[in-house]
Every structure is written in structure tokens, then in C-alpha cells.
């Protein structure tokens, strides 16, 4: 197990929730109600992540992603099952475990709002007891990966969202953690900033061999960073494999684009196992003239969408 950054075995998490009643009368009833129902947020998830791996941890909203991340970071205790992060049980020695993980939540910042970025870095250096030499090397590495000069002395509250996210990612790596959790790091960013963030994550992962667990709804992140993806839905793991395998997940889908007589493009999703592409074209040709044809691999986004919509189960 030494070479595994993260191991989960049959992890389940249940929540007890009060059954709320409707209306004013119901609200008053709820004050005294003992009527609880159990919701299973995570059901029997097993997972192993090797050191230095970047995995995409995907799932529709409410699938149980955040709950899993909270268990991995030690904030939540699993109802049953086993979790080991860097060989340790995260919720038992939370303070100690925190020294070896980094987190970035795209919608929140851990930086000190009114202070220049460099002060947040120094504070984190002291909080995590990073030796001065290691800290300086890290800042040097940051300089080589991104242009930090314009932001290093800027108060965080004056930063654009992109600069702030970039800073938050740098802050999460300052103590050189073995594993970093990135929760929607590119949310709300423009195309070029997204590219910068992705390059930075890739660079840090390569230089420091940091394990990265990435949750996102942006398939561009997944395509750029992850070789392996794990998908959960309704608390269950439904996919755990390479991104290449994903494309053949429900047969060999391809998208057929046809330029018709009136210069409009028509696109169709075709399963090559059940339908013959040539046949489709021939059929179409009987009705109208086809000026141009393009055949494309199905995009990750489309596959994921199909999985979320429940065609896999």
C-alpha cells in the first residue's frame, strides 16, 4: 500500500435527515418530530489512487462528490468502510493529516482577504512549518511556471477571479502536500485563464509528483489533465478507467456531420455497432444532396452527458 496515495474500501456514508412537513402546521409539528429518514450519500465506493496520478472525479450535481471529498480530507467520518490517505486514517488524526493535503475550492478562498498575496504565503509557510529553504525553492518553482510578479504584492481583495484562483492553487501547494484536492478550480474563468490554470496544475504535478484529485464539470479540464476518470452517480461508482475506454463505453459512438444542399450542417450520433455509417449516408442521399461529410469521435462531454442522463445503468 506504500505507493498508494489514497485507498478507499467499501466506503459508505449515511445522513439522518428530519422529515419536514408542509405548511405552518407542519413546521410546528417538525419542532417535536422524531421522524428521521436515512439518506445514503455514498454507497460502497472503493478506489485506489497511485502517487503522482491526476484523477478526474466526476458526477452530476448531488451525486456524492463533495461528501466523498470531505471524507477524504477527514472532515467527515464514513459510516462504514475504510479510508487511508498517505497511509493514515484521515478523520482520526485530522490535524496531522492536514499537514499532508492541500485543498482548493473554486468558489471559496483560503487567502487572507486584505493582505498582499505574499503575506498569505508567509503565513501558510509558518502554519505548515515549512523550512525556509523549501519555501524559497517553491516560490522559485512558481516563478518558473507562472508570471507571479503582477500578483505577489497585490491584496487578494483587489484580484480578479482568475488571479485569485491561481493564487489559491499556489497557496495549496506551498507546503508540498502529497495529495491535493481541487474542487472546480476553473469555475467562472475565461478560456485563456482556464488554460493557464490547467498548465499550472500539470506543471506542479509533474515537478512535485503530487497526487491530484480533481472534481469538475468542465470536460476541458478532464481532457487536459486526467488520464483516468472516476464517475459516481447516486452515491455509487459507475465508472473507473482511462479516458480512452470511456469513449467506447456504450459501443462505438461517432458523430456524423453532413453539409446538405441548403448549406446547413446536420449532425447525428451514430452507434457503429448497430448502425452502418455508409447506410445512413446513402439513405440521406436519396432525399437530398450532400455537399460535405465529416466523421468525428464522440467528445468526452457527450459521453459524460449520456452517462449522467442514465443510459449506462
Amino acid at each position: 500500500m506504500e505507493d498508494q496515495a489514497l485507498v478507499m474500501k467499501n466506503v459508505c456514508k449515511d445522513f439522518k435527515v428530519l422529515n419536514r412537513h408542509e405548511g405552518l402546521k407542519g413546521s410546528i409539528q417538525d419542532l417535536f418530530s422524531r421522524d428521521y429518514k436515512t439518506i445514503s450519500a455514498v454507497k460502497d465506493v472503493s478506489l485506489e489512487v497511485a502517487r503522482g496520478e491526476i484523477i478526474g472525479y466526476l458526477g452530476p450535481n448531488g451525486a456524492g462528490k463533495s461528501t466523498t471529498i470531505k471524507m477524504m480530507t477527514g472532515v467527515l467520518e464514513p459510516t462504514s468502510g475504510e479510508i487511508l490517505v498517505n497511509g493514515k486514517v484521515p478523520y482520526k488524526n485530522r490535524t496531522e493529516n492536514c499537514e499532508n493535503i492541500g485543498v482548493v475550492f473554486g468558489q471559496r478562498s483560503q487567502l487572507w482577504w486584505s493582505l498582499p498575496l505574499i503575506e498569505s504565503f508567509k503565513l501558510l509557510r509558518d502554519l505548515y512549518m515549512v523550512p525556509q529553504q523549501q519555501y524559497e525553492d517553491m516560490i522559485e518553482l512558481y516563478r518558473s511556471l507562472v508570471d507571479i510578479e503582477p500578483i505577489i504584492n497585490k491584496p487578494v481583495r483587489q484580484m480578479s477571479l482568475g488571479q485569485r484562483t491561481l493564487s489559491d492553487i499556489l497557496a495549496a501547494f506551498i507546503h508540498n502536500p502529497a495529495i491535493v484536492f481541487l474542487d472546480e478550480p476553473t469555475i467562472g474563468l475565461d478560456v485563456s485563464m482556464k488554460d493557464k490554470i490547467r498548465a499550472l496544475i500539470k506543471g506542479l504535478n509533474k515537478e512535485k509528483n503530487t497526487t491530484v484529485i480533481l472534481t469538475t464539470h468542465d470536460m476541458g479540464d478532464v481532457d487536459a489533465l486526467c488520464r483516468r476518470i472516476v464517475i459516481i452517480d447516486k452515491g455509487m461508482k459507475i465508472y473507473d478507467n482511462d479516458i480512452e475506454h470511456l469513449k467506447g463505453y456504450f459501443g462505438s459512438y461517432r458523430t456524423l456531420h453532413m453539409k446538405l444542399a441548403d448549406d446547413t450542417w446536420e449532425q447525428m450520433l451514430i452507434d457503429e455497432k448497430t448502425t452502418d455509417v455508409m447506410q445512413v449516408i446513402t439513405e440521406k442521399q436519396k432525399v437530398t444532396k450532400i455537399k460535405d461529410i465529416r466523421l468525428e469521435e464522440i467528445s468526452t462531454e457527450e459521453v459524460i452527458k449520456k452517462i449522467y442522463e442514465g443510459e449506462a445503468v
Partner: protein
Amino acid sequence: MNPRKLFALTRAGIMESLHYRLGTFVTLFANLIYLVLVYYLWKAIYASSGVDVVNGMTFTDTMIYLILATSLFNFLEMFVVWDMSRSIQSGKIILDLLKPLKFRTYTFWSYSGSHVVSFIMTFIPTFIVVMIITKGAIPMGLNLVYFLISTVFALIVNFNIEMIVATICLYTESTWGINIVKETIVLLLSGASIPLAFFPEKLRAVVDFLPFRAVYDIPLTILLEKNGSDTLQGLLPMFGFQALWIVILTAAGTLFWNYSVKKITVNGG
């Protein structure tokens, strides 16, 4: 508990509160208005009583006490309840929970810097003004050192009360009402708004055992060298009282927090 971690938090806190220095001036101005009100209120009380000394305190004694209590209040005031309820609602609390320190320690030291700043920016100026106006009514000696020690104790007691109330708010999910109740209870029973000497005997007997007295009454009594606090025999029971409540409240607060933290982390995606 490594001092490097803790002082780093104090340092950042100082820098952050210096950033909002305008707030300090507003506080000083608001105090001035409040104290004018207090002045006329107590002037009327003394005038109607017909004697110079009420409950062992002259008008000047009472005023000095209340002025210092007000500036001590500015210094001790914490916003743990507000800040925590906000960070629970936004889910930001997870970032604080993931710092490599115990949450209570982290919170306490995060606030420490702002206390240092407000002590220097509001308490010391007020103290000097009182000294000038009363031409040295406050004794200047070892009592200043004892006062500082008991103020630090008061700070810890107050932090613990705040943390316990903040933890209660996790369950009620509403902050406003409970916070107002807490503030009123603390200000009244600690002797911050009315000196404890004015309390009816029976109520006084109860209040004497409650932790609130450790927050305002004891530090001010020590500073003004009242109730025999100028002797070691008088001083030690006061420090003992504060220390005892620190132990009790820290233990209770820690247990309550550790039990409750498992529940709150459900919130927020």
C-alpha cells in the same frame, strides 16, 4: 502547539486590523457619545440619591469604572458568533477546519492580532484621557501588571463563552437572537454596564459565582485597586476565580465543539 504557528496568526491579524484603521476612529467617536449619555444618567442617579457615596462608590469612581469598562468592551469584543455562522452558511468553514491546527486554537489566535491592535488603539488612549481628566485617579504601580494578566484571562474566558454560544448556533441555525441574548447577559452580569456594587444583595450573591464577572469586573477591580486587590490575599482569589472558569469553560467548550463539529460539516456543497 508550536509558537511559530500561533505568532504567525497574531502577526497577520495585526496587519489585517491595521488595514481597517478607520474603524478604530469610528469606535472612539461612538464611545464618546455613549459616555456622554452615561455621564448624565449617573449624574441624575447621584443627584436623586442625595448622598455623595452610593454603595461605596463616588460619582467619580463610577464614571472611571464605566469609562474603562466601555473601552475594555471594545477591546474584548469578539465576533466569533457572527463570523462562524457566516462561514458555515457559505461553507467556508471547511477551509478553516483543514488548517493544520485544532479549530479552536486556530480561531483564538486568528483573533489575537485584532485584540492587540484594539488594546493599543482604543484602550490605551482612553486610559490616558481618564488619567488626564481625573488628574491621576488611577493608581500607577504593580496593579497595571496584574491588570494586564487578568485582562488576558478575561479574554480567554470571553472567547470560551463566544465559542460555546457559536456552537449552540450550529443547532438553532439562527444567530441574531441568541447573540443579542448573549451580549445582554454578558454585559449586565459582568458589570460592564452597571458596576456590580450596585446589584441587589441576593442577585450579587449569584453573579459572584458566574463566569461573567471574570470578564469585566475582575480586571477593572484590579486596575482600580478596589476590594482589597492591592494585597496578595485579595488578588489571588480573583486570579483563582478566573483560572478556574478558564479550565471549566475550556473543557466544556472543547467537548461540546468536538461533538458538534461532526454535525455541521454536512452543510455546504
